[in-house]
Every structure is written in C-alpha cells, then in structure tokens.
C-alpha cells in the first residue's frame, strides 16, 4: 500500500514536471482574478475579455510564441493575492499580471515594484490606484476622470447648478466627493450637500428626506452593486424627481432594466459598440458570437489589457529585446498611444489610461450615448 502511494505521488510529480516543460515554449502572462468565493463572478467576466484577446493575438500571430494566460485565484483577498502574485512572478516568471480589486491590487503592488513586473488593473476606479508606482498601470479611467467629464456637460448643456452628492463611505466615494468639491465651483456649479452611506446600508428613506430638503437640481450617486439600484428606487419612491447622475458603475443590466432609473445620466469610457473601427468591431462581433450577448466595459478593459501586452511585446520582439516588465514599461512610455477597443488610448505619466469619455442615458436598452467628451 505504501509502495503504491509512493509510486502514485512520484508519477503525479513527474506528470506535473512534464506538463510544465511541455508549455515552456509559450509566452505567459498572469491573471490574478477571484475564481472562488463571493466575487468569483467577476473573475469569470474579466476572464472572457482576457481570453478573447489572447485568442486574437495568437490567431494573428502577433508574437513569435503562443500567448497563454496563467490564472491564479486571488479570492479578491490581499493574502491570497500575494500568494498568487508570488507564484506568477517567481515560479511562472511572468512579466505582466492582470489585476483586479483594490485590496489585492494594493497588496501586490509592492511585489510588482520589487520584481519589476507590470501589474495592470481593469476593474477598480479609486483614484488612489494611480499612486502605486511605475509598474502598476490602470487600463480603466479612474473615477476622477469621470467626474471631470460629466460636470461641464451637466452645467452647460443641461443647465443644472445645484448638486447633492450621495456617496458610499469608502475610498471610491471619498475620492468622488473630493473631485466634486474641487470641480464644481470652477465649472460654475455648487455642491449643496454631500451625504455618505455605509457600504452595507440598504435603507435610504432618511437620506432621501435630506436630499429633498437641500432642493438640488441634480443628485450624483457614487455607489455600486445592489446598493446603487436600491438608492435609485428608494429615491424615486420617496418622490425625488431630480436628474440622477452617476459614473461607470451604472453600466450594469440591473440599473438599465430598472424603470426608476430611466433618464439617469452616467459616464463611461468612450466605447461605441457599433463602431466600424476594426479592433472594436472584431471584439464586439466575436464576443457576441461566443457568448451570445453584448460585452460590457469590464470585458473590453481586460481585452485591452491583454491586447496592450501583445502590442508592446510585438514591438520588443521586433527590436530583439527580451519581454521583461522593465522593457514593457520603457516601451509603453515610448509608444504612448495604442489602438484598443474603443479607439486610441494614451497613458498618463502615472500609468493610467486617458481615453475619451462619454455621457450615457439610461433607456432600458443598454444605454444611449448623449455626449462624447475628449480628455
């Protein structure tokens, strides 16, 4: 029995070693997504975008080797994220890691900086993600860009001057509050009240009463997930008829289908799903064919994150340089602008993408674009 167990263990190890060798010729990048636990759904969504990009890169033979993505389960937790990051960096030796979730992103940023490995976020929008060092990039415009994009539109085009902000009590909400406090007076508006709600709160009648008392022209909601839908519904139920405004977290089916949200305005990065731009069209067509539904901004972001790697690595390979985190960073600084889904994208010096933004209106059918704002 002991002999059988030993033989089995040795065979398993040998198979593992063989498997590792068999894949040695591939060019690997890492993905640190939650694949178990309560946030596993996000990992699945992010993965669809990343995988599609890898398929396209391999089909086009952009790189000399086959590009594969090594997934590690972060469970959206810092400790698991650090374990996964360590494996990707030290064992798989990837030069580039797709990251998601603020806690995980912050926890792995130290390892990324120390080992000169690029980590790229396509999900979190808290502005503090821009300050995690040169090896931490954001392929999603952060929340401060979203506020800057919509405020002039609301004041000039919609003639809305008095704003109330209802924000979730976390780094995202705090950053949107700071951005509104700074941006509104300069643009000719006024923040008459800023009301915070705890992240777990689901009852907003009291907040609605305070919003009504402030008599605003518009209500900016800075929350996410099911809480956001509850705020919208309860505000309308409590008789608040003012214009509702929000940011990219509004681009989810739950909000779009909500009758109370009709007419609400929100920003996203500028992605025209009907665009004839070849990169966007191919992405939308192939995604629809594969999953039988329209992609979302998150899917596009992780597609773009992998596509960005493909473009940078291609340039490095042409120059005969090894594909390392250090060289990828240097190449990104040199190239500046990239053809991604949604059009051309440029990176700011802090590694955060600057792309055109758009203002959308909730229409129950996925949202219609009412204004495009160039950064």
């Amino acid at each position, binding site marked *: 029995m002991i002999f059988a167990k030993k033989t089995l263990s040795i065979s398993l190890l040998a198979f*593992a070693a063989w498997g590792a060798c068999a894949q040695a010729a591939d060019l690997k990048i890492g993905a640190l997504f939650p694949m178990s*636990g309560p946030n596993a759904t996000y990992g699945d969504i992010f993965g669809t975008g990343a995988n599609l990009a890898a398929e396209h890169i391999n089909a086009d033979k952009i790189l000399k080797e086959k590009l594969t*993505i090594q997934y590690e389960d972060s469970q959206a937790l*810092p400790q698991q994220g650090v*374990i996964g990051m*360590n*494996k990707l960096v*030290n064992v798989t030796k990837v030069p580039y890691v797709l990251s998601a979730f603020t806690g995980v992103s912050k*926890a792995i940023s130290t390892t990324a900086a120390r080992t000169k490995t690029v980590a790229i976020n396509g999900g979190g929008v808290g502005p503090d993600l821009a300050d995690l060092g040169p090896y931490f990039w954001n392929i999603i415009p952060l929340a401060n860009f979203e506020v800057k994009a919509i405020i002039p539109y609301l004041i000039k085009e919609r003639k809305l001057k008095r704003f109330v902000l209802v924000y979730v*009590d976390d780094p995202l909400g705090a950053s949107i509050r700071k951005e509104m406090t700074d941006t509104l007076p300069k643009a000719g508006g006024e923040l008459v009240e800023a009301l915070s709600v705890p992240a777990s709160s689901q009852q907003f009648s009291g907040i609605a009463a305070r919003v009504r008392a402030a008599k605003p022209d518009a209500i900016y909601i800075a929350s996410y997930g099911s809480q956001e839908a509850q705020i919208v519904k309860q505000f309308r139920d409590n008789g608040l008829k003012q214009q509702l405004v929000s940011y990219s977290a509004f681009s989810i089916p739950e909000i779009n289908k909500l009758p109370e949200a009709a007419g609400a305005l929100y920003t996203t990065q500028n992605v025209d799903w009907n665009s004839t731009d070849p990169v966007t069209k191919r992405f939308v067509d192939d995604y629809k064919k594969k999953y039988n539904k329209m992609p979302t901004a998150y899917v596009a972001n992780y597609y773009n994150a992998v596509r960005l790697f493909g473009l940078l690595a291609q340039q490095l390979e042409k120059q005969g340089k090894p594909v390392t985190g250090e060289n990828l960073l240097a190449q990104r600084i040199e190239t500046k602008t990239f053809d991604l889904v949604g059009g051309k994208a440029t990176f700011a010096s802090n590694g955060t993408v600057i792309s055109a933004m758009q203002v959308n209106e909730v229409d129950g059918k996925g949202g219609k674009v009412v204004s495009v704002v160039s950064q």
Partner: protein
Amino acid sequence: MEKMLAYILNLATLMCINAVLAITLNFIMGYAGIFSIAHAIFFGVGAYTAAYFALHASASLFLAIPVSMVAAGLLSLILALPALRVRGEYFVAASLGLQVLGVTIFSEWKSFTGGLGGVIGIPPADLFGHAITDPVQFLLLAAGCLVLVILVTNTLLRSSFGRNLKAIRDSESAAHAFGKNVAVIKTLSVMISSALAAIAGALYAFYLGFINVESFTLDTSVLLMAMVIIGGTGTLLGPIVGTVLLMLLPSLFSYMWFLPQTEIGAIQQIAYGAAMVLLMIFRPGGLVSARKNQGEP
C-alpha cells in the same frame, strides 16, 4: 528548482503566521472549550496596532509586537468579561457579534485603519537596527515567533492553569463546584490567546507592507476554525497540520495542469466540502486526534 524558492518562502512565511493564529485559537477552543469566531479581530487589532506604531513611532519588533499584544489583550479583556458570562453556543453568537462589530470598526475608523482602502507603505520590521526585507530572514523570524508561541502555550497547558482549562472544557459546573473561578480562568485564557494572536497580526502587517479589512473578516475566522478542527482540536500538532493542509491544498490544485485553470476555484471548494464531510464521518477528532492523548497533562 531555484525559481520555486521565493514562492515556497512566501508560502512558508504565511503558513507560520497562520499557524500562530491556529495555535492560539486552539488554546481557547481545544483546551477551554471556548468556540470563538472572532479570532480574526484580534489578528486585525495586532496588525493595525503594529502598522500604526511602525508608521508613527518605531518599526522595532521589540516595541511594535509588545504594543500590539497589549492592545489586543486589553481589548479582549473588555470584551471577554461580559461575553464569557454565557457559555456554549451563546458564546459563539456573542463572538459573532464581536466579529461583525470589529469589521465595521476596521472599515469606518479611517484615521487608524485607512477604512476599506487600508494602510499602505508599512515599513519593514526592524530587528536590532536591521531592516528585515530578505524573505529568508523574514521566514526565520516568523518561524522563531511560531516556536515561541508553541513554547508559551505548551508551558501554560502543562501548568495548573492548563489543567484548569481542561477541567472547564470537560465540565464547567464540576470545575465551579471544585472551587475554580471559572470566569477568571476563561477571561485569562481569552486574553492570552488574543495577545499571542496579535504577534501574528504584527508579523502579517510587516510582511505584506499593506493591510486592509479584507484580511480580518468572518471568512478568516472561519478558515482559522477549520484549520483547528481539521488538524485536531486539543492537540499541539493539530492546528499546525490543519494550517499546512489548508494553505497547501489551494497551491497544489493550481499546479494540477490538467484541471481547467478558470475552474480551479470551484473544484477546490468541492474538494474542501467533500474532505470536511469525510473527515467528520471517519475522523471526527481531526487528523491529529486528541483521543490517544487523554490523560496526559
């Protein structure tokens, strides 16, 4: 093999930290029969205190660890005194309340904990003026702390205090009838356990250089409890075996190349669930069963 080293060092360091937590939880759970699901809070208090102290006063281990131990010990004293008046499943409910309360405070007390955004840029631990940034040195430090915690708990358990704990576990009423001050013994045990758990917290903060509330949630408390139960409650080796197993399994799964990569999480959950059910049927005392040790001090 060389490239594996950094990964193994990382895993081993986190195992040592988690083993300290499992051992300290076992100290109250396995020996005093106090089923606490708020252990992650004391882990968190230790981590936040050490981080705050390191950022604002000194990163010296000889100062940061004792300060975090005192903070966690005192907090547990305040909370244990009223909560320990109830026993059994009522204490589980009380500790659940503490866990929920603790997480809310960690999320909301932004000046101290940084809220959900956490504390970033914690300096490396300082030992005799030397900053411990090397992974091997940190592993040695974590292993040293683990050995120290094992020695302290073992010594306590072999003393009359340990015998009192076991007496309370076996029958609180009998221990009371024999003149034992049950409330004091239970409070002391929770205090010692929490203070020792804070060592793990301090190490964790120094090691990651970043902490936020996500590391100290109910999930962590449940995981620690699973480590103790799977390994074997009321044994010295049990919590360590449980920790190694529960931290190694996810890593091993991710090495099985024949499993679909994106489904590894789900497969792991199924394997955990099945293993727990089988373990409870065939070996309810945990992998390192305490039965053979009965009668020893």
